Structure formats: C-alpha cells, structure tokens
C-alpha cells in the first residue's frame, strides 16, 4: 500500500514539477481525442439518418394478370412466411386507381373501358435485416413464386445510401486508427522525455535496488492519467457545447454514456500502452 502511495506520489510529482510539459501533453492528447469524438458523432448522426430512411423502404410486387383474384391470397400468405417480412398489403386494381387519383388529384383513367392498373402486394420489412444484399436475395426468392410479374423497390437509392454509410464507417475507422496511433506515439515521446529529465533520479533508484517496473510505474500512471483526463475533457467540452448549439432540423446523435465510458477506458489503455513502450525505450 505504501509502495503504491509512493508511486502515485511520484507520478503526481512528475506532473506538478514540469507543468509546461504536462500541459502540452494534455492539450495535444485532448485535441486528438476531441477530433475523434467529432468524427464519431458525425458517423453516428449519418448512420441514424440512414437507418431512419431505410426503415421506410418497402417493396411492391406486381401480380401476373393471369393469376385469378381468388388465388392472390395464396401468394400473399407465401410472402408473409418469408423471413424478414413485417407486413403484406394487397392492393387491388381499384385500390391502385384510388391511390393514383389521390396522387394526381384527378382520375387519369377516366376514358378507359377497363382499369389497366396491375394488382400488387406491398411488402414492408423488419428493420434489423434491411440492407441491399439482403433485399437482393429476397427479390430472387420472391421471383420464384408463382404469380409474380415484376418487383419494384428503390434499389439504386438504397445502394447509394449504403455505399455512403460504408465510406463514412471506413473513414471513421481509418481516422480512429490514425488518432489512436498518434495518441500512442505522443505518449511514448512524453514518457521518454519525462524519464530523460529524471534520469539522475532513476539511476539512483536503480542503484538503491529499485527494479525497472518500480522505476517505470509512476510514468505508466502518468500516461494513463493524461489519456483518461484528455478523453474525459473532450467529452465534457462536447456535452457542454451541445447544450448551446443547434443545427436547425439536423438531429445530432451522440454515443451513449456507456459507449463514452468505454472510449475513456480505451484511451486509458492507449495511455498505458504508450507509457509502457516509452518507458521500455527509455530504460
């Protein structure tokens, strides 16, 4: 216990006795983590809008004219049994005509002897399965059902939205890796320089029988402290800013508290790793 207190005291001493070095380390880590936080929030917001849009996707399955009305319920039931289907709604020729009327404001088919609009089934999906690849597979399965004439959904739009989401995700991953790498390198250098500045003291500790781990532990604590405090400070600034800033109709999506907690723990782990490597290089 007393040894731990001694090491904590040493770590605190390291920070207090070199305030400028401590502030510069803190600020550089703070900026890196803040940048990561902003990219993360941007991705979550984009992802939220994508999910919201994809939730409205439905599929219209046009029924073959040769299929008698009496058997459309069989097709409808077959669709309902397929995985991922939430609802199936039958649209008769008359319903289709009424929808067209509502859409256009007048009956465009007034001169026709017979209603030429096809019958269809409108399928909505369970959201957790929705993506373009799944919909492609679903479409192939539906095509095999008897009585299906044509299938329509916003395939191109979905592909584009999905590609956009993937690109944003990859950018976050790349930036995240770069930022964490930069944080780690920053800490390696900070700890190495800090140990260099106290080289005489470390030498004496070693001569008095202190092991490498004992000598390095205050610097590991220093690394964890800088990383965690910088990460927490970044989120505090963002949360404080969110109280005063608004972006019109755009709803900003923030990570949950538990995600932020994991992020800060991750920053601490980066701090520990960076300090460990830094101390290994110095000793």
């Amino acid at each position: 216990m007393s040894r731990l207190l001694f090491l904590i005291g040493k770590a605190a001493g390291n920070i207090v006795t070199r305030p400028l070095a401590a502030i510069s380390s803190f600020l550089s880590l703070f900026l890196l983590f803040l940048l990561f936080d902003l990219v993360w929030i941007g991705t979550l917001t984009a992802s939220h809008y994508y999910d919201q849009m994809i939730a409205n996707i439905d599929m219209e399955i046009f029924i073959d004219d040769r299929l008698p009305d009496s058997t459309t319920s069989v097709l409808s039931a077959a669709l309902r049994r397929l995985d991922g289907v939430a609802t199936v709604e039958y649209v008769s020729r008359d319903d289709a005509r009424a929808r067209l009327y509502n859409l256009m404001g007048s009956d465009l088919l007034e001169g026709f002897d017979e209603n030429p609009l096809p019958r269809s089934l409108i399928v909505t999906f369970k959201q957790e399965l929705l993506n373009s690849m799944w919909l492609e597979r679903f479409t192939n399965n539906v095509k095999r059902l008897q009585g299906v004439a044509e299938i329509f959904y916003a395939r191109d739009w979905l592909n584009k939205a999905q590609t956009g989401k993937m690109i944003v995700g990859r950018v976050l991953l790349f930036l995240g890796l770069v930022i964490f790498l930069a944080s780690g390198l920053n800490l390696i250098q900070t700890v190495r320089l800090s140990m260099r500045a106290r080289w005489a003291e470390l030498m004496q500790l070693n001569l008095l029988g202190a092991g490498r781990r004992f000598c390095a532990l205050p610097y590991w604590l220093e690394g964890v402290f800088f990383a965690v405090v910088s990460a927490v400070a970044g989120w505090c600034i963002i949360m404080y800013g969110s109280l005063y800033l608004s972006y019109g109709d755009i709803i900003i999506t923030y990570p949950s508290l538990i995600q932020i907690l994991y992020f800060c723990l991750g920053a601490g782990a980066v701090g520990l790793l960076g300090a460990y490597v830094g101390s290994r290089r110095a000793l």
Partner: protein
Amino acid sequence: MISKEKIVELVAVSLSNEAGLRIFENLNLTLCSGETALIIGPTGSGKTSLMELLIGARKPDSGEVILFGKVLNLKNERQINEIRRRIGGVGGIFDLVPGLTVADNLVYPLSIRGDALSVQRAKLKQILTQVNLLSKKREKISNLTRGERLLVMLGRGVIADQPLLLIDEPLDRLESAAANELLGILKRLSVAGHAMIIFTTGQGSFDFPGVMAFHIKDGRLQ
C-alpha cells in the same frame, strides 16, 4: 547489533576496461559484518570500478563476486536488485536527487522495500536525529553543504538497515569539523556491526577498530 556474517567475498577477480587494459588481476577480499576495508589508491587506480563490481554494475572477466553469500549474476535482475537493497552507498556513483528534500531522499530505500508509512516516519526521525539533520528535514538537497549531503547519503545508506556501506572519498573537501562528525558516525556504524568499504586516495584518519587498509597497486590489493 547486526550478527557476524560474511558480507563480501571477492575470489580471484580479474577485470579489464573497454580498451582491454587490465584493471584488476586476481583480486581477493573477504569482509565480514563489523569490519571496515579501507581501499587506498590514486585516481584511476580502479576504485570506482571496484565499487561497480560490488553493486553488480560490471561483470568481472573471471573470478567471483559474492555478496551476502550469493554469487552475483548480472543476468538475474531480481537478484541484483535484492542485493543492492542491502547496500548503502555514499559518494562516487551514489548521489542524491537535488530537486527533492532531505526526507524524500532518505526514505527511498524504505519506499523501494515497501515499508509502511508509519515505519518510514519513525525510521526517518531516528536517522535524522543520528546524523544531526532533524532541522533540515524539509530542506532541498541543493541547499545543503557538501558535509550535510554526505550525512544524508550516509543516513540513506543505513536507514533500511543495510549491512554493507560503500563509501567513496568521504573526507574529500570537508572542513575538519564536518570530517570529525562524519568519522564519529562511521565509527558508531562500525561498532553497530555494519560492514564498510571506504574508497580513498589517502590513508586519512580512519583509525577506528576493525579497519583493514588495502592499497590498490598494479591491479592487486596489497
């Protein structure tokens, strides 16, 4: 009182410097608790190298360095650290940390050993009283005189009941009053059973009981 035991044994130790020049040839020395070895030699005769051998900072070309009954194995970091915890160093490669206080410097050996804070406080008070530095407890090392620094190092060298003291040029550049005070403390430590190796360029006035004087000449102790 520390019980009588073999503290240091140098058995046929030979050592060369980086250039391959022989520093020691077939060096032999045995020191038990309560005994003091005075190693006398001019600058460059190998006193610092001998000190480095004794704390496991250098490996002999041949022969064995045995401390507290254990043959020094430089590859065994844990063993070296354990042995170093039982050695008090004054001067030479041993120094104090100038930015810290007297108390901070003194408790290092106890902190490394993991002693409880209450034990550290009690020991600190006891040692500060012994070396007459109680009033300088919170003083920065950089504000002390050379004599006071030597006393702090001496205090650090015995605070954790280290059985062996390595002392390099203790009387160098000391005023007579400070030198007498230091000699008085060394005498008391010797009587208390501490083994001491004192490295010096001249015979000096180490005329307390149990002193064995050795001259380093041509890489041998005579």
